């Protein structure tokens, strides 16, 4: 077959962003607005949730942990999903930016998962009377945390970074099986952790005065997550470029 016939059009395919210069220019333009919007929305959502939303009739003020716990829990799963999407891109299309993105999403996702587990434990003590319960959702979230840690350690364990990215991508795809288990654990098993109150298909079974701050802070956390990953990604691209320059100089000097 003619090689030009199957070559993707570079201006329209995703490989457009494989050009590090173009990625740095574009991301540099939207990074600051992204970070600021995220920070402002987080402040609004958390301020509303912590000070102005009503307390729960059963749990009292303890329910306010929700405004941190639920966004981090969503992001923990969404971050791993992002990792898996990057893995597909890096294995199928060998997209160089997807490799770096997977390596940079890992630590941020692990941090968010740790935050989710920590806030959940703080919430569990006053409401369930225990810091930790071995119920299906908590356990699968802990497994997700370990999957993140494994991916982080694996990507950085190879002398050849290319090999690390490939191995990390395969691991991320194997680990993605845990995601549906987390999502449906509260529906499949009758556990202590409550079932979802917010679904896409029906009206949320939650007071609107609590729903709005939750959604706003979730959006703020998500934008913040995206901003941190983008900033790390920019740093990684520049780091790689710097290493290339140093290598070139060392070789020229030798």
């Amino acid at each position, binding site marked *: 077959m003619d090689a030009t016939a199957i070559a993707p059009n570079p201006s329209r395919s995703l490989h457009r962003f494989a050009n590090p210069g173009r990625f740095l220019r574009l991301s540099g333009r939207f990074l600051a607005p992204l970070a600021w919007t995220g920070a402002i929305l987080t402040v609004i959502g958390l301020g509303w949730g912590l000070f102005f939303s009503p307390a729960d009739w059963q749990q009292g003020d303890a329910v306010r942990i929700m405004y941190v716990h639920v966004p981090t829990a969503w992001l923990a799963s969404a971050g791993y999903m992002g990792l898996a999407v990057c893995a597909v891109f890096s294995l199928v299309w060998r997209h160089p930016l997807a490799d770096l993105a997977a390596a940079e999403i890992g630590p941020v996702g692990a941090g968010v998962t740790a935050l989710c587990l920590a806030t959940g434990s703080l919430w569990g003590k006053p409401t369930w009377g225990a810091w930790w319960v071995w119920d299906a959702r908590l356990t699968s979230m802990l497994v997700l945390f370990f*999957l993140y840690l494994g991916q982080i350690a694996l990507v950085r364990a190879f002398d050849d970074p290319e090999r690390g990215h490939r*191995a990390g991508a395969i691991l991320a795809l194997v680990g993605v099986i845990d995601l549906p288990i987390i999502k449906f654990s509260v529906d499949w098993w009758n556990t202590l952790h409550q079932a979802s109150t917010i679904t896409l298909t029906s009206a949320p079974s939650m007071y609107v005065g609590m729903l709005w701050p939750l959604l706003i802070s979730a959006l703020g956390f998500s934008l913040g997550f995206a901003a941190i990953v983008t900033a790390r990604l920019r740093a990684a691209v520049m780091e790689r470029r710097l290493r290339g320059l140093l290598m070139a100089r060392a070789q020229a000097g030798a």
Partner: protein
Amino acid sequence: MARFLALLAREWRLSVRHGGDTLAALLFFVLAASLFPLAIGPSPETLGRIAPGIIWVCALLAAILPLDRLFGADFEDGSLDQLLLSGLPPPAIAAAKACAHFLVTGLPLLLAAGPLAVMLRMPPAGIPILLVGLVPGTMTLSLLGSAGAAIVLGARRGAVLLPLLVLPLAAPVLIFGTAAASAAADGLAARPALLLLTALLLIALPLCPLAAGAALRSAAE
């Protein structure tokens, strides 16, 4: 298929001739399990209740022990490159290795698990179900382990990294395996947990060799 069987026979011969390495996992299994009565105390009620958990956890750890040599030796001396050139697709190589790991590590563990369960004073009603559950369980562990071993091939500190990757993935096997054995020991139905264990095996059977094959290919590049 002939090549697959030839590879399997080669693995079998290698493990028989390195008898010490093969027995190490089994010894570890028995030793680790016999530490529990020393640590917890010999009371039959406590031991009998946690016996399925002890046996499953020790089997899981013992199955992971020989994994870093599963592909490691072939990777270092270049036989892996020869295997990949042999015309056998990489997933089939991984499947043969997983099969060999089950025959060499999983089966001896199964044989040792029965006497161990009796020594740990497990209720007799639960022992057959424990052994039945260990069959698909150790097979799944071999498959998961071969995928993990292929992924860490060539990594620094790969042997340390391997349990970190495989243990979280093996958690569902452990949960359903012990659930089946405990249910049978308490006189409850063990069938649902056994069916779920088998379902896990059927998921791992095509997916793990695929992942391991992809990892082998990228390791040999």
